[in-house]
């Protein structure tokens, strides 16, 4: 059986004003900033602890280094981690091994090092190259200027993805089109486009309240992005993801298709054996611990069906009723059909029946209201 592996690196150079993640800013402490050796050592031990006991035949077909800022890892550290993974679970030949890279770490030397350590795919934390927007959201990393973008995209030997944030304070559809035009010039295989979310308890949320008009503007930005990227030949395959044909993120697809993945490191999440698990420990405690505390998320009887809808509908191709039954053991009941029919009439959902099956997907309007559409479908199950 193939399984995804997620490695969490909860360290950053500084703290971005909009970021609601748990991550430790290490900018001032070590120079140059780096992931503490003790952390990597503990990760290796966690692999031994948690992976060596898996049923035989389990292998990893995707690995994802996320964070935080995983590009703070040195190529050597990555190699160590990959080697350990190989020992405890086995990385398949042709596996997708992704690393998120912040602009600071885009140097020819580092990129080469990452590739040599087995990285096959890199995601550039681009967000925005415009000074005023960069400042408006209080991003702590270096701004990704066009030169960095060019260097990242012209390097060879890995598959490229660029993370773009839109709907920033002061930003309009025209600005979005410009930024995307710039990126598309280099033809990365993949782009993720997110709308800025004002997370509670962040510095950004405390100084900027958003509001009705701002949200309306965010939608316009997102629509501009969708149109621009589709026009450039990208396939809009998930609400916030775009790819050239065949270049979808294999690792992330697991999240939306109910495939198993195992997360390592404090704050990471797993979906394995039909259970959702998380490692709930602060970093320092994690480093000192002998055993990682893995918490099983207590889920009600309908959780699988709810999650299947919640994740599956994010894919623009939609879900099929039979696939859902196969994956979760739950059939779509009469009440749920009724609800979906209602949403269909409101133009938010599309239900295509054929034979014994039905395909259910969000309409363009439904994409923008996805949280609400999903809530309405599953309301009865929760």
């Amino acid at each position, binding site marked *: 059986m193939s399984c995804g592996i997620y490695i969490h690196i909860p360290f950053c150079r500084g703290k971005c004003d909009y970021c609601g993640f748990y991550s430790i800013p290490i900018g001032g402490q070590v120079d140059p900033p780096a992931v503490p050796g003790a952390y990597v050592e503990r990760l290796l031990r966690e692999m031994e602890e948690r992976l060596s006991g898996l049923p035989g035949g389990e292998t990893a077909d995707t690995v994802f280094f996320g964070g935080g800022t995983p590009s703070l890892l040195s190529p050597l550290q990555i190699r160590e981690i990959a080697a350990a993974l190989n020992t405890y679970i086995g990385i398949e030949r042709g596996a997708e091994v992704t690393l998120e890279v912040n602009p600071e770490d885009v140097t020819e030397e580092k990129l080469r090092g990452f590739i040599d350590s087995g990285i096959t795919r890199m995601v550039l934390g681009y967000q925005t190259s415009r000074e005023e927007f960069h400042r408006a959201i209080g991003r702590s990393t270096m701004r990704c200027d066009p030169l960095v973008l060019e260097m990242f995209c012209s390097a060879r030997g890995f598959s490229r993805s660029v993370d773009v944030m839109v709907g920033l304070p002061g930003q309009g559809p025209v600005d979005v089109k410009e930024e995307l035009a710039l990126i598309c010039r280099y033809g990365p295989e993949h782009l993720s486009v997110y709308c800025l979310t004002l997370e509670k308890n962040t510095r950004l949320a405390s100084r900027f309240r958003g509001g009705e008009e701002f949200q309306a503007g965010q939608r316009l930005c997102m629509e501009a992005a969708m149109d621009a990227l589709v026009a450039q030949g990208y396939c809009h395959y998930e609400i916030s993801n775009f790819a050239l044909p065949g270049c979808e993120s294999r690792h992330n697809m697991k999240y939306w298709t109910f495939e198993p993945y195992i997360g390592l490191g404090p704050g990471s999440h797993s979906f394995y054996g039909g259970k959702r698990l998380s490692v709930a420990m602060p970093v320092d405690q994690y480093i000192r611990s002998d055993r990682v505390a893995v918490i099983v998320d207590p889920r009600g009887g309908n959780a699988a069906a709810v999650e299947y809808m919640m994740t599956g509908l994010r894919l623009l191709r939609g879900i099929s009723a039979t696939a859902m039954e196969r994956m979760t053991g739950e059939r779509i009941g009469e009440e749920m059909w009724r609800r979906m029919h209602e949403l269909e009439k409101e133009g938010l959902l599309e239900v295509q029946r054929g034979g014994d099956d039905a395909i259910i997907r969000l309409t363009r309007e439904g994409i923008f209201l996805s949280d*609400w559409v999903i809530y309405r479908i599953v309301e009865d199950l929760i």
Partner: protein
Amino acid sequence: MEHIRNFSIIAHIDHGKSTLADRIIEKCRLLSPRDHIDQILDTMEIERERGITIKSNAITLDYTSRDGEHFIFNLIDTPGHVDFTYEVSRALAACEGVLLVVDASQGVEAQTIANLYLAMENNLEIIPVINKIDMPSADIDSTKKSIETSLGLDPETAVPVSAREGTGIDDLMEAIIQRIPPPRGDEREPLKALIFDSYFDKYQGAIVKVRLFEGTVKRDDDILLCATGKVYSVNEVGVFRLSLEKRDALRPGDVGYIIAGIKTVMDTKIGDTVTLADRQTVTPLKGFKDVKPMVFSGLYPVYSDEYDNLKDALYKLRLNDASLLFEPDNSFALGFGFRCGYLGLLHMEIVQERLEREFDLSLVTTAPSVEYKVHLNSGTMITIDNPVKMPDPGSIMMIEEPFVKADIITPSDYMGNIMSLVSECRGIHRHMEYIDTRRVQLHYELPLSEIVFNFYDKLKSCSRGYASFDYELIDFRESSMVKVDILVNGEPVDALSFIVHEDKARLRGKDIITRLKDIIPQHQFKIPLQAAIGSQIIARENISAHRKDVTAKCYGGDITRKRKLLEKQKEGKKRLKQVGSVEIPQEAFLTILKIG
């Protein structure tokens, strides 16, 4: 009997009634610390805070006069608010005299006059007391003048005192002895006692507060309550001291209590006559009325699972407050609750406050309404106190609404403001007179429904707090009343319907939907808000659609979090009332229904 004096103190609020009562009680050496007295005379926390009582309390005191003679004073404390006029009148009927307190720095106020009339109706000896003479702003001469001109009392009979400093209290005590007549009555006659209040005790049932006029009552007597016709066997009689003090018997002139295993205060109607079952009086006391509520509103728990608690709480309150009426009701928007009837606005506020504080309930109250007489085309007449029950306009021939006689006293500077306020409230000016050089008394006839809509607050604010006001129900009159419905997304929200004069329908409808607009959260679609009379729309607004969280990401770690958010959303939805496809937070009703 010659040595008994039964009296009450009446005063406009804050003129010093409680302080004076303290001084009198001190003179009788019962006790001095204020907190004890609070416990005796003002029993409820809310009453203490607001400085008003809604119950009539009594205390029996011993006083030795200047000549060394021993007297018994029964001091009866009356509720201090227009809502309780009837209760006050019954408490006064238990007395031979009253101390009518006037604040020397404020002069005569509306309530002073209203109380005076009550005292006169009961043929009581009135001792005017000019209080707060210690204050630099005290104007004794002018107060005397207004006692003469607006109260029609001999100013020379007024006793000047400072209740705070104790000045003049001894003279007042002597005046009580000399001027208030002792009670009269024959011990050999059949029992005739007036119920002026009662309260509920967990163990003993209703404790009935009575004043005896004729005959005696003692343990094991079978008493008959004339209004209900029920008979009870007396367990205990006694008088009110610091606590209940048992006596062998009560005799004519006495003020005390009867305990007779009466299960609820609903059976002990204020103003009723107590007599002996086997030796009945042939002349029950006059003045008994079955009090009817004047103000009505719906009461709903914010959380539907608190319905039973609300029910229990209402039953508990009614144990001690027979004037509180309620019946189960249900609203499409607010679920299961109760329709309640109150004596007046203050009574309503007190009941609601007690439910929330003493019983820890979160409540939504619908707009207060008065009772309308609706004459139908069919020739029948129905009374309606709930807008929801108002029949279709096409079937109505004519509607009558209650009118009150309202007396307002104000410094003449604010006369203009008040006149325009009253005319806004459809008041009919009757006449006015100067009660002294600065102040006028205005007499109006006003629809009660206008008073229910915050009239008192508006009066206070347009007179900078100086105007005082008193009202009394007079009759029902034909008015062009209409029912206004509030529609949210095309669906009427029953709890928000109200009855109003047609000239004001548009304004009030607009006011409510403007407030609704701020309170109903945005939905994913546009929500029209409308106020309508029948099918005619008189005001409209829109809540624009809310475009949410356009495209947040969702990766491995977000799934559990997102699922929990869905669960939370569902949990939150339980606190929302679904009206069609619009969800209105329960709390919204609280805000909207505070009609301004």
